[in-house]
């Protein structure tokens, strides 16, 4: 064991046991998902070495800790994605919120209407985060009541990750020899049949076991038909609408015909795509960087990786999207030093927005979006429309509960063959009881 790894380890232990570090530091806690890779990237501060969401955010934190001049120490607590919001709300409910937390834009209303997060507009002006540089959709996402409530970090959405070789083999190509994607549900099914007949491979790979992915695809299809899951006032659920029925029907037809394997979880679906067993992987922008790296590996079964915007099957362009944003939860005992430290870190994150966009997410700063280094990133030219067709959930207060129940109910239609009408009826009923509180408020 070298001194180099031993030292931080001992420090960590000392810090954990409550010993006072030698330097008078302002320690702030950072609560996030994105996975844990503190071992893999221990002491790495070189951003070019970091790959993927976890790597990049970890190295950003490392770099900040190593380089900031104010003696600020950001202590990361990474929580597994599946239980992240449970943990976050438990901490907020227990009146021990972290200093900084990552959040989805869709979840922000829950916290914002209850006054649980700091308004940031004034602070941003102080530390020099230029709100005007945020692209409009990102700025609107974190605005409410004329205030800014969070630092937007990215715009992410669903993409179709494509194995171009399989499309060529199946003859599903346009005149330029590029993969040809469907323009209607019927065409999607025809293509899928062709794929199966000519290559013996599945058309789609979708993480389908207890995963939100099919639900995001479902939402995209609902919106493409001009429908929505709640009414304009966000008071009534519309889960039994004809758009909703159609979107769920299409998913189930695909599973039933074997065009997607209902038994795939996230890893398995990804594996099927990477090993050339499926032509299209439905996954988010966060995968681009990783799959591009995989495809460069000469041993990879996936050789010709391309990315496509969500195909429009129903007429109106739309794709599910969300944003990662950073919030400062309101503290019961405000601490000016910690607040300042947290803002300094947010500024740092904002300054490095480009690096985060390397994951495949779209940057939120107009200046970064237009930059040359951005355009030089692989595959970015292949999904330029996504930024314009990105559609977010309407700002519903009880978005978590609503999404969880929807995911559960939709999944049960292909996992346990629950009748689709019944699943939607159950969802509608449960959603109404959740939205009831919105109606009262």
């Amino acid at each position, binding site marked *: 064991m070298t001194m180099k790894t*031993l030292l931080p*380890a*001992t420090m*960590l*232990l000392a810090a*954990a*046991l*409550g010993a006072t570090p030698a330097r008078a530091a302002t320690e702030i806690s950072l609560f996030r998902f994105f*996975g*844990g*890779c503190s*071992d893999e990237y221990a002491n790495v501060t070189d951003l070019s070495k970091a790959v993927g969401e*976890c790597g990049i955010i970890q190295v950003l934190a490392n770099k900040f800790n190593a380089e900031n001049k104010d003696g600020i120490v950001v202590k990361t*607590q*990474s*929580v*597994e994605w*599946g*239980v992240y919001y449970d*943990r976050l709300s*438990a*901490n907020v*409910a*227990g*009146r*021990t919120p972290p200093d900084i937390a990552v959040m989805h834009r869709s979840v922000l209303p829950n916290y914002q209407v209850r006054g649980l997060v700091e308004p940031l507009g004034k602070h941003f002006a102080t530390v020099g985060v230029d709100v005007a540089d945020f692209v409009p959709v990102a700025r609107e996402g974190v605005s409410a009541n004329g205030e800014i409530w969070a630092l937007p970090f990215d715009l992410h959405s669903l993409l179709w990750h494509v194995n171009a070789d399989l499309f060529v083999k199946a003859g599903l190509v346009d005149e330029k020899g590029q993969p040809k994607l469907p323009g209607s549900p019927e065409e999607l099914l025809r293509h899928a049949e062709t794929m199966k007949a000519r290559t013996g491979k599945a058309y789609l790979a979708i993480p389908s076991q207890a995963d939100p992915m099919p639900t995001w695809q479902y939402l995209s299809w609902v919106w493409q038909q001009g429908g929505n899951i709640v009414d304009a006032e966000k008071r009534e659920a519309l889960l039994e609408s004809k758009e909703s029925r159609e979107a769920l029907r299409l998913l189930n037809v695909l599973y039933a015909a074997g065009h997607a394997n209902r038994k795939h979880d996230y*890893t398995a679906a990804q594996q099927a795509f990477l090993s050339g067993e499926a032509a299209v992987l439905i996954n988010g922008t966060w995968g681009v960087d990783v799959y591009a790296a995989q495809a460069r590996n000469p041993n990879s079964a996936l050789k010709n990786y391309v990315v496509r915007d969500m195909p429009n099957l129903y007429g109106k362009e739309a794709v599910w999207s969300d944003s990662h944003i950073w919030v400062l939860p309101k503290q*019961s005992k405000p601490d000016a030093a910690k607040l300042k430290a947290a803002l300094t870190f947010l500024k740092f994150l904002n300054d490095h927005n480009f690096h985060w966009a390397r994951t495949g997410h779209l940057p939120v700063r107009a200046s970064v979006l237009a930059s040359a280094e951005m355009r030089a990133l692989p595959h970015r030219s292949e999904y330029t429309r996504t930024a314009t067709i990105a559609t977010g959930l309407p700002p519903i207060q009880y978005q978590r509960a609503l999404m969880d129940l929807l995911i559960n109910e939709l999944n049960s239609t292909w996992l346990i063959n629950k009748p689709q009408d019944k699943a939607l009826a159950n969802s509608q009923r449960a959603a109404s009881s959740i939205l009831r509180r919105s109606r009262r408020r």
Partner: protein
Amino acid sequence: MNRTFGDRLILVLVIGAAFVWMMPMLWVLSLSLRPNEELVRSTAGILPWPKTLEHFATLLRVSLTPRWLLNSVIVAFGMTALTLLLSSLAGYAFARIDFPGRRAVFLLVMAGLMIPEQAILVPLHAMLADWEMHNTYFSLIAPRLAGPMGVFLMTQFFKAVPRELEEAAELDNASRLKIFWSVMLPLSRPALTTLGIFTFLFAWNDFLWPVVTATQPEMYTLSVGLGSLQGNFAMSEGLGFLMASAVFASAPMVILYVVFQRYIVQGITLTSGK
């Protein structure tokens, strides 16, 4: 069928069953001793070969596990000591002091046996949140001191102690506290041991309440910490490490079990109300 043959056959079957029973633990123990690179290839077999202690080293060095161990020790000992104290005081009062309202208070306390911890989980959380007391040793220990089981056991025990032993002291005009402390408590060693062991086991393995009140990793107990590692299965520092944590977390219990097995079994007989 020959009787001894039958006995032997049963014995052989049970020995076989015992091996199957132990298999998961032995296997996990062996996984915790194998290098991760080896585990990626195969997890088959029970013999840890090649073996390594790296996971335990990592665990002690870089993880929060030692801190969780410390928390568990504080919580378990704190809860045990306080439960013994409160229960024996109250048990003595119920069994030996004739005060007005005794029966009513006793019934009121015993009614608490009917309230499961899950039924008060949510309000308890709300209450401690109002006090801003979550993520403290207080919140991990205090709610667990309210359970009436210990009082019940100690009351039963003190009732069975012959009165003569006390009367001698009473004649000496010793105070209640003195009688309790120097006569009754020494007599109740076996009962206290049993109650102590069970409280300790309970405290060590407690999960539902700690998982709700301890939301910051520094305040996790081993049980909660291990649960959080499990949630992070995919992203954990590798299988061997995970298994080592399980072994590490259960080691104190295994030692306790080996040392106190007799008392534990006696204690069970006691709880069966015989």
